[in-house]
């Protein structure tokens, strides 16, 4: 596991992820505490799909693909899952912690929305976001044998869903239903379905990984 961490968590990735969050928290304003999570989620999606795109294809660009393909299929699949899990855990913890960085903006608390509750909702929505977007990019990158196609397709999906069009088309089933919901008046039912859909699709992607790995090695 220690070696997998060194492979998929290179120093430059850690640096750019922290820098991204730093710039994000400086650039995005929040007025009230419930806005924090809603502001972070679209950025979390971007970082997830960029961060995890090269999970498997790094061996392609790193000129290791020929020997990687010689390894037993089961070993390769376990490696992909391990690398993905390490990255997802890192991103999840990072974004959970980064929630509190936004407090430098002194957002107003809302009495009806206690911090513990808001943070809990954020943690659930974040989980769905990180799982979905990390796996979307991973699956597409693997199938296309290109991290840039993975990032590109994910970006297109992000643009469509993180827009007024996406809100109008998908409503509370939108992938970004949480960040689109009202910070003060919004109810859980306004966004939980979007998160559940993300988690369901993520589960499907997890099952697809072995099938794609088998196909690309033919």
């Amino acid at each position, binding site marked *: 596991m220690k*070696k997998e961490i*060194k*492979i998929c968590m*290179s120093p430059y990735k850690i640096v750019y992820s922290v820098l991204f969050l730093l710039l994000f928290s400086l650039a995005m304003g929040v007025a009230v505490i419930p806005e924090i999570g809603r502001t972070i989620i679209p950025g979390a999606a971007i970082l997830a799909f960029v961060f995890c795109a090269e999970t498997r294809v790094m061996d392609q660009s*790193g*000129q*290791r693909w*020929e*020997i*990687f*393909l*010689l*390894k*037993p*299929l*089961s*070993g*390769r699949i376990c*490696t992909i899952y391990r690398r993905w899990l390490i990255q997802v855990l890192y991103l999840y913890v990072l974004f959970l912690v980064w929630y509190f960085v936004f407090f430098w903006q002194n957002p107003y608390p809302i009495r009806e929305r206690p911090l513990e509750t808001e943070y809990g909702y954020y943690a659930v929505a974040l989980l769905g976001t990180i799982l979905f977007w990390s796996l979307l990019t991973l699956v597409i990158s693997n199938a296309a044998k290109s991290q840039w196609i993975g990032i590109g397709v994910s970006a297109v999906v992000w643009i469509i869903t993180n827009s007024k069009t996406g809100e109008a088309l998908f409503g509370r089933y939108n992938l970004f239903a949480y960040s689109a919901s009202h910070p003060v008046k919004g109810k859980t039912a306004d966004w939980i379905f979007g998160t559940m859909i993300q988690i369901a699709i993520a589960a499907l992607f997890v099952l697809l990984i072995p099938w794609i790995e088998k196909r690309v090695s*033919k």
Partner: protein
Amino acid sequence: MSIVIKQVTVEFKNHVRAVDQVDLTIPRGIYGLLGENGAGKTTLMRVLTTVLTPKEGEIWLDHIRYEPQQYETIKRKLGYLPQELNLYPGLSVRECLEYLGELSQIPKNICKKRIDFYLEKTGLLPHQKKKMRQLSGGMKRRVGLIQAMLGEPEFLIVDEPTTGLDPEERVRIRNLLVDFAKGRTVLFSTHVVEDIAATCSNLAVMRKGTFLYTGTVQDLLNHAKGKIWMAAVSGEDEARGLEAKYHITSKQYTEEGMTVKMISDTRPAVPCTQPQITLEDAYLYLMAPKETL
């Protein structure tokens, strides 16, 4: 273990035939695959490692036929050092080999013993804690070779393992391969004739996707007997004159002037002798356009 290749063709999407209906039998021992850049050597090796699927033909690894349902079995018997390999730069030498050993599902204790053995044999033991990115080109090639041999494969394929290395490194790698080839099959691809001469008794010469020659090194040398000539010339002008008429393969300045080596089917019309034929001479004779001889 022997490998039999029958009428194998590899065609890419742009209809370029990188390998064109080749037949080859690779017996036990170290077998050389010689050819210029772009001859099709790497493509053939990728077919043998199941990375590429041929358009036509059959390949047999002993009694196992190359087909998709057998690929996992075949891969377990193979070790491969590709022409370009960039192992994980952030890992140390030992970590890298342990990682690749884990991926190959070699038991930890066996893997550790093999890594210790090969690090010792390749002179990399003092460097085992260095990061891969800190190593020289020759050291990286040695690590690449170790990863190929770690699974104790019955069939080892090495694609231009000595390219860009200094003479000492090349000798070290060649000796490793010769030692490893005992009781196994090693396919050694290179465009450096000297490497083949030093290690192989059998070889194939490839050009533009086909084999120009397959057989023993001795037979290839015999093939060029009476075709290699050496003449002493007074200087550059005379050498240029010979170049216009004959196929010159080498020129060397001496105290008396210059000696030139020529390939010709008939004795050149200048005073000349027949030197001892090297594999390079024989290879160049084979590759020379017939109209120039």
